[in-house]
C-alpha cells in the first residue's frame, strides 16, 4: 500500500510512458492494428444505426446495399414523432433518472462513509447485508414488488419507478471504497475541533470524494436511463413509459413492427446519442474514478 510513496522518483509516473526497450516498441504497431480492427467491429452497429436512421425507405431495402445515404432525410424521425410521444417519454426518463441519482448520491455516500470511517455496533452485519444485496438478482423481486406497488397505488407513478432503486448496494460499495482513502487524521482533527459527525461527513468527507461522486452519478444515471424490466412492469399507462419501454413496446408491437427499420433506427439513435455524448464528455472523470477504485 505504501510502496508507491516510497518508490524512487523515476518510478512515480506509473501510468505514464516508461523508457522502453526496442523489443517492446516493435510490438506496438501490431497492438494498434489489433485494437483498430476491434474498434471497427465495436462501432459498426452504431455506424449502421446512425446511417440507416437517415436513409430513405428505398435505400434501406436496396440491394446491393447503399452504405452511405445519397440523400440524407429526416423522414424517419418525423415518422417516429408521429408514432410516439417522444418528448413525454424523454421527460419521464430524465425525471426518474435524476431522482434515482440524487437519492443514491446521498444515501449511498452516507452508508459508505459510515462503513469506512465510523465504528458502530453491527457494522460488519450491515456490510454483509450490502454485499449480499449486491449478489441478489433483481428479477427475483419482480413479482411481489409488482403486487406491493399495486397495493400502494404506485403503479404508473414516478415513486413506483424510483423507490426500488433509491439506494443501490453497488453505490454503497463504491463509496465505501473511496471513503477509505480519506486520511483518518483529517476526520480526527475535525472531531478534536468539536465538529459533529454529520458536519464531518457532509463538509469534509464528501468534498474529498468528488471524483467518486461523479463516477457514481454516471453509473446511476445511466443505469436508470437504460433500466427496462422494472419500468416495463411498473407502468401500464403509456403516459408513464420511459424511453426504453416505449421503444421496446413499439418495436415488438405486432401491428406496427412491420413498420420501417429506419424509424426504429431513428428511435434507437435518439436514445443512444445523448448517452454517448454525455459519456464521451465525462469519460475522463469516469476512467479516473474507475482507476482509483481499482487501486484500492
Amino acid at each position: 500500500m505504501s510502496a508507491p510513496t516510497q518508490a524512487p522518483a523515476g518510478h512515480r509516473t506509473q501510468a505514464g510512458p516508461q523508457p522502453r526497450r526496442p523489443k517492446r516498441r516493435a510490438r506496438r504497431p501490431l497492438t494498434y492494428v489489433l485494437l483498430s480492427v476491434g474498434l471497427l467491429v465495436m462501432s459498426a452497429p452504431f455506424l449502421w444505426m446512425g446511417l440507416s436512421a437517415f436513409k430513405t425507405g428505398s435505400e434501406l431495402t436496396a440491394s446491393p446495399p447503399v452504405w452511405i445515404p445519397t440523400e440524407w432525410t429526416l423522414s424517419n424521425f418525423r415518422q417516429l414523432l408521429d408514432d410516439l410521444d417522444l418528448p413525454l417519454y424523454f421527460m419521464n426518463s430524465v425525471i426518474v433518472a435524476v431522482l434515482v441519482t440524487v437519492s443514491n448520491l446521498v444515501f449511498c455516500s452516507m452508508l459508505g462513509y459510515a462503513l469506512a470511517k465510523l465504528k458502530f455496533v453491527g457494522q460488519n452485519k450491515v456490510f454483509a447485508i450490502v454485499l449480499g444485496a449486491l449478489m441478489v438478482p433483481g428479477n427475483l423481486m419482480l413479482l411481489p414488488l409488482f403486487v406491493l406497488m399495486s397495493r400502494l397505488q404506485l403503479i404508473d407513478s414516478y415513486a413506483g419507478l424510483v423507490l426500488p432503486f433509491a439506494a443501490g448496494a453497488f453505490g454503497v460499495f463504491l463509496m465505501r471504497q473511496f471513503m477509505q482513502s480519506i486520511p483518518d487524521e483529517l476526520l480526527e482533527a475535525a472531531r478534536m475541533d468539536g465538529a459533529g459527525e454529520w458536519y464531518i461527513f457532509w463538509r469534509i468527507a464528501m468534498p474529498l470524494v468528488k471524483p467518486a461522486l461523479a463516477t457514481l452519478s454516471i453509473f446511476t444515471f445511466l443505469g436508470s436511463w437504460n433500466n427496462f424490466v422494472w419500468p416495463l412492469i411498473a407502468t401500464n399507462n403509456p403516459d408513464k413509459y420511459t424511453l426504453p419501454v416505449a421503444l421496446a413496446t413499439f418495436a415488438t408491437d405486432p401491428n406496427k413492427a412491420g413498420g420501417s427499420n429506419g424509424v426504429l433506427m431513428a428511435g434507437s439513435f435518439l436514445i443512444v446519442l445523448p448517452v454517448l455524448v454525455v459519456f464521451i464528455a465525462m469519460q475522463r472523470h469516469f476512467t479516473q474514478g474507475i482507476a482509483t477504485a481499482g487501486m484500492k
Partner: protein
Amino acid sequence: MSTTTGRAAEAAEVPAGSPAAGAPAGAGGDRRSRRRPRLGVQNAAGWLFSTPFLALFTVFMAFPIVATLLMSFTDFGLRNVTNPLDAEFIGLENYTKLFGDERFLKSLFNTAYFVVVGVPLTIGIGLVVAVLLNNGIDRARTFFRVGFYAPVVTSIVAIAVVWRFVLDPSDGLIAGLASEVGLTSPDFLGSELLAMPSMIVMAVWRNLGTVMVLFIAGLQAIPTETREAARLDGAGPWQEFRRITVPLLRPTILYATVITTIGYLNVFEEPFVMTQGGPSDATLTVSLNMYREGFNFFHMGYASAMAYVLFVVIMAITVLQLRLLKDNTE
C-alpha cells in the same frame, strides 16, 4: 436505543484497554478519555447513516425476497394482486410441476448455453483488449477505451433493436456485407440453430467493455517493479502475461467472472426485444419465461417458483466459482 449505547460503551472499553490500540495512535491519557464518549456518538451516527439504505433494503428487497418464496408455495394469480392473502397454499406443487414442464427445462438449457459460451468469451476477449490497451499505447489509449466501453453505457433495448436490424436476413448489415462478396446471409434470428449464438455474440459485444475496465484497473495496480523485474530476468511477453499478469489479476478475474455470470444468468432484454423467445423457444430464457408466466398469464405463484429456482442456481454457481477460482490461487 439504550441497549445499543450500553454495548457501545463496552466496545469502547476494549480498544482503550488493549495496549495495541493505544500504541499506534501514540495518545496520552487525556486523548483516550476524550475518545470514549466519541464512540457512543459514532455508534449513533453509524446507525443513523445506515437507516435510509436499510429501510429501502427492507421494504424493496428483503421483503420481496421472502414474499417470492412464500408465493412460490401458493396458486397466486391475478385476483390475488388485489387480495394477496387469499392465495391458496399448495405446498411444493409449483416446483414439482416445474420439473415436468418441458418449456421450463428448455429455458433452463438455453440460459445455461448462453452462460457457458458467453462468459468465457466475454472474459477472454475483455482480458485481451485490456492487456493490449495497457501495452504502452499512451496516445490513443483513451480513444480506444471509450470506443470499447461505449456499448456498455447504451440502452440494451436500443442495442437489441439495432442488432435485430444488423442481423436482418434481407436488409441487415451482415446481409449487406455478405452480398458485397457474393454470399447470402442466413436468417440468424429466424434459425433455431443460429438464434442463440447470435445473441451470445451480441452480449459479448455489449459487455466486454465492463470487464475491460475492471481489468485495466487491475493491471494498473500491478507494480511496475514486478514487471521490470520479470523483464530483467528475461521473461518474454507471453511469459510475462502468464506468470505475472494472470496470477496477479486473479482477484479481478474472479470478480469479473462472477458478475458476468450473474448478469448472463438473468438474460432477459435481448430475447424479449429480438426474438420474443423464438423460434420455437430456441431463445426462451428462464427470466423471459418467468416474465411471461407472471405478467402475461398471471401465474404468479408458478413464476415465483421459477424465480427461486433461478436464484438458487445463481447462488450455487457463485459459491462454486468463488471456491474454484480461490483454490487455484494457492
